[in-house]
Structures are given as structure tokens and as C-alpha cells.
């Protein structure tokens, strides 16, 4: 799964100037991170257009679906498309760019992998929860989870979902100019 996200700004890292005092709050908030040879790098927002490429393995998508089905996460069944949106929102974008910097998406999708899904999810129907003693994933939910995972989606479905999830306005296709119309004929 390959998601290319168009951005008008993005996060990058610069050494903190010598006159800057780094506080514990800065470290805790992730505004700085350790540099190579002591000191810190600070997160800066580069304000020019770029694109972010994210490559998501099928195992990662299934792992996200498993995570969302855990009792302490509320046992929320996710489709494959929703899981991809969650991966971008929770795992990827916090380190890459603020959602308001996103201007568009391009998606190259692979097919779901039923065999891998069953291999990864089935063990969680046998492992029990620490306190309740119940299976982490109810075995009776498996057919529903599998059906949600295997649901047919097109790259355009993913793009539409991501636009909605990140509240990104769709740029309408400009009307064809007379020259384009002439070529089309």
C-alpha cells in the first residue's frame, strides 16, 4: 500500500541555536529530539510544497485492525480502508506534518491477503484478556472482521475516505480548455 500525501508544509529538524534553552516540557511534547553528538534538534515547519510517501505493509494494516479490536481500545471493528486512515493519522502524520498542511492524496493499493489475515488474527481469538479471562477477540466476530477486511475498495475509495478523515477539500477538476477539447477530438 503506497500513499502519497501532497503537503503545503512539512516538519523537519534543525539544530537548536546556542541561545535556546531546551525545557523538559519541550522534550515531553516532542518539539526536540537528541542530536547526533549531544545537544538537540528542534522541529521546524518548512513552508513550501512537497509530498510525503508512506509505504504500509499488509501486515501493518492487519496489526492495526487487531489493535482497534482490543478490549482496552473499545473493540471497534475496522475495515481495511479505515485501518489505513488510522495508520496515517495516528502512526505516520504526527511525525511528518500537521493535518492542516495536507492538500491531497494519491493511492496505489494492493489486494487484501486473506491467508495473512487469518494467520495473524486467529491467535488473538485464543489468547485471553489479563483481567476478564475472555478471548481478546471473540471467535464469533471473526467472519464479520474478515468480511470487513476483504471488502472491495478502489484507490478512489481510499482517496475519498482520506479526504473526509483529514478534512481535506477536494480540488475540482478544471474545465477543459478549447485546446484540450480539440486534442480530445
Amino acid at each position, binding site marked *: *500500500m503506497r500513499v502519497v500525501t501532497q*503537503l503545503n508544509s*512539512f*516538519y*523537519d*529538524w534543525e539544530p537548536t541555536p546556542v541561545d535556546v534553552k531546551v525545557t523538559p516540557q519541550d*522534550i*515531553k511534547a*516532542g518539539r*526536540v*529530539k*537528541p*542530536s*547526533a*553528538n549531544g545537544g538537540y*534538534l528542534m522541529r521546524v515547519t*518548512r513552508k513550501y510544497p*512537497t*509530498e*510525503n*510517501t*508512506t*509505504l*504500509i*505493509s*499488509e*501486515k*501493518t494494516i492487519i*496489526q*492495526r485492525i*487487531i*489493535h482497534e479490536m*482490543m*478490549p*482496552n*481500545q*473499545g473493540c471497534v471493528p475496522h475495515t481495511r480502508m479505515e485501518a489505513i486512515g488510522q*495508520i496515517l493519522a495516528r*502512526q*505516520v502524520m504526527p*511525525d*511528518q*506534518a500537521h493535518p492542516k498542511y495536507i492538500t491531497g492524496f494519491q493511492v496505489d493499493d*494492493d489486494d487484501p*491477503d486473506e491467508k*495473512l489475515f487469518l494467520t495473524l488474527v486467529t*491467535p*488473538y481469538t485464543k*489468547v*485471553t*484478556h*489479563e483481567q476478564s479471562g475472555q478471548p*481478546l477477540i471473540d471467535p464469533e466476530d471473526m467472519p464479520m472482521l474478515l468480511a470487513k477486511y476483504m471488502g472491495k475498495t478502489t484507490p478512489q475509495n481510499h482517496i475519498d475516505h482520506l479526504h473526509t478523515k483529514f478534512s481535506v477539500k477536494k480540488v475540482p477538476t478544471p474545465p477543459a480548455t478549447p485546446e484540450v477539447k480539440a486534442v480530445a477530438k
Partner: protein
Amino acid sequence: MKKSALPQPKRSSARRTVAQAARDAAKKPSTTPIYACFRTDILAGKSKRTRKGIYRHNLTTTTASGYTNAYDWLAKAMGQGPSFAGTWARQSPTGVSATGCTGCPTTLPTAGQALAGSIVVCYGSTNNILVYGVIMSNTSSAIVVDQWYDATSTSGAQGTTPTGGTFYITVLPGQNPAAWMAVTSSSSPTTADTFLAGELAGVTGFSRAVGTYSHSAAASTYSLVHLWTAGATETINMEAQFGAANQPNTTPGAALGVMPFESSEPNPPTLVSGDTLQNTVTITI
């Protein structure tokens, strides 16, 4: 202009010459500007185990012997181009098994780190299968890979072993990327590590996995992220990145895949079944 009129550098007894500084630096391990920062978040719902981590500097494997050393991997990945190739790079071995190929008629290079870390593509004419493998070691006529990879799998799944008929292999310049992530309950990393001691593999939810790669064009970093959802109670003490899918042997020197970056947990989290550990690694280039 008189010499005394030129700006003179300030003299101080504390200042050293470049030669002195170079001699002092030679006594210490070298440091690399390319490094990783690890961050661990625990996602355990409303329990007290939930916590957001902070970035911490990695431990770069700089003194490990063999090709698992981060410096060697970085140099070969970034700089090893077509001059690496030779007449041996494309040939037809006589045998292919699940862990490599044998009977290469053109002598393979064996000096130094030889072909370790490079990618070999293999085709078998009988079952018409094309796969690739990460070279672990080689002799003058045989190559050992950690597994044959299904080139269509985004998760690095094991591919079908080619059968022949006739076999063809091509060894590519460069190195396989270190995109695999793993965790362990063991501790005490050192720069000489070649594998992650006690790597969690048989425990539900903790197997080695390909991280989610993300990079913004023109940014100075890229990141790898993975979620591990625990199927049993485990304390996570260390994480590391690898250049191959398979777990190493526990014998030093017999490691599978480069391990450039590892990091110990300052406050090792104990996960119970159902908890999730999110490990984010940002590599500064």
C-alpha cells in the same frame, strides 16, 4: 601589511592543535551523523500503563565485526555502485535450496565481507518462479540467503523456492534496506552487538515486522513505525532495526541481517495481553 596587523587567532592554554585533537579523537569510538531516535508509546486504553514516550538517541552498532556494523551497511548502501559487479554477478548455478544456491560456475568474490547484505535475484525455469534473497554469506561457489522473498509481498513473506531445469541468479549492487523492526525482553546493548539477544518471536504479537516507512521529499529524516499488540505479559527492554526478515542464530557471528541501530528502554514497559506498543524510529540522514 605588517604581520602584526593581521587578525591573530586568540591564544589560550586550553586550545589544542588539530593534530592534538585528532590524536585524542583516535582513542575514542567514532560517532556518526546518521543516527536514529527511538520513541515508544504504550497504548493500553484508560489503564495506568498508557503513556506517550519521548525521543531517545539510539545506540549505533559501530564496532561489531562483520557486515552487521551500521557503518559498513551505510557505506555499501549509499556508495556501492556498478563497480561492485563482475562476470560472477549474473550466472547459472546448478542447485537452489530454501536457503541459497550452490554450484556457481563463475567464482564468487570471497575477500573481506564478500557479498554479505546484497540482494540476489533467483529464477527457476521449471516452476517459473522469480524471487529475491538477502545474502548472509558466500563461498566461491555458493550463496547463503536468510530466505527467498516473495517479491510481490509488502510484508516480506517467504516466497516459493525456485526449481530447475535451469536456474539464473543476479547479484545486485548496494544493500538490502534495514526496514525490519524487532523487540526483546533482554537488556544491556553494546556497540559490538550483531543481533538482538532474546528477540521476541514466538510470543503472540511480537514477531519481527517491516516498519511503515514514511518520508517527506526534501526532509532530513525518514521514519519507520510499527505496532505490536501483546498476546502475553512481556517486559520490553530493547528495540532494534534489521536488514532481513529472519531471526538470527544466538551464536555471535552467525547473525542474520545487518543490525545498524538498537535502543534500550529507559523505563521498560510491561505489557499485558491486549496492550499495544507503538515503536517509532526516526532516522536523521
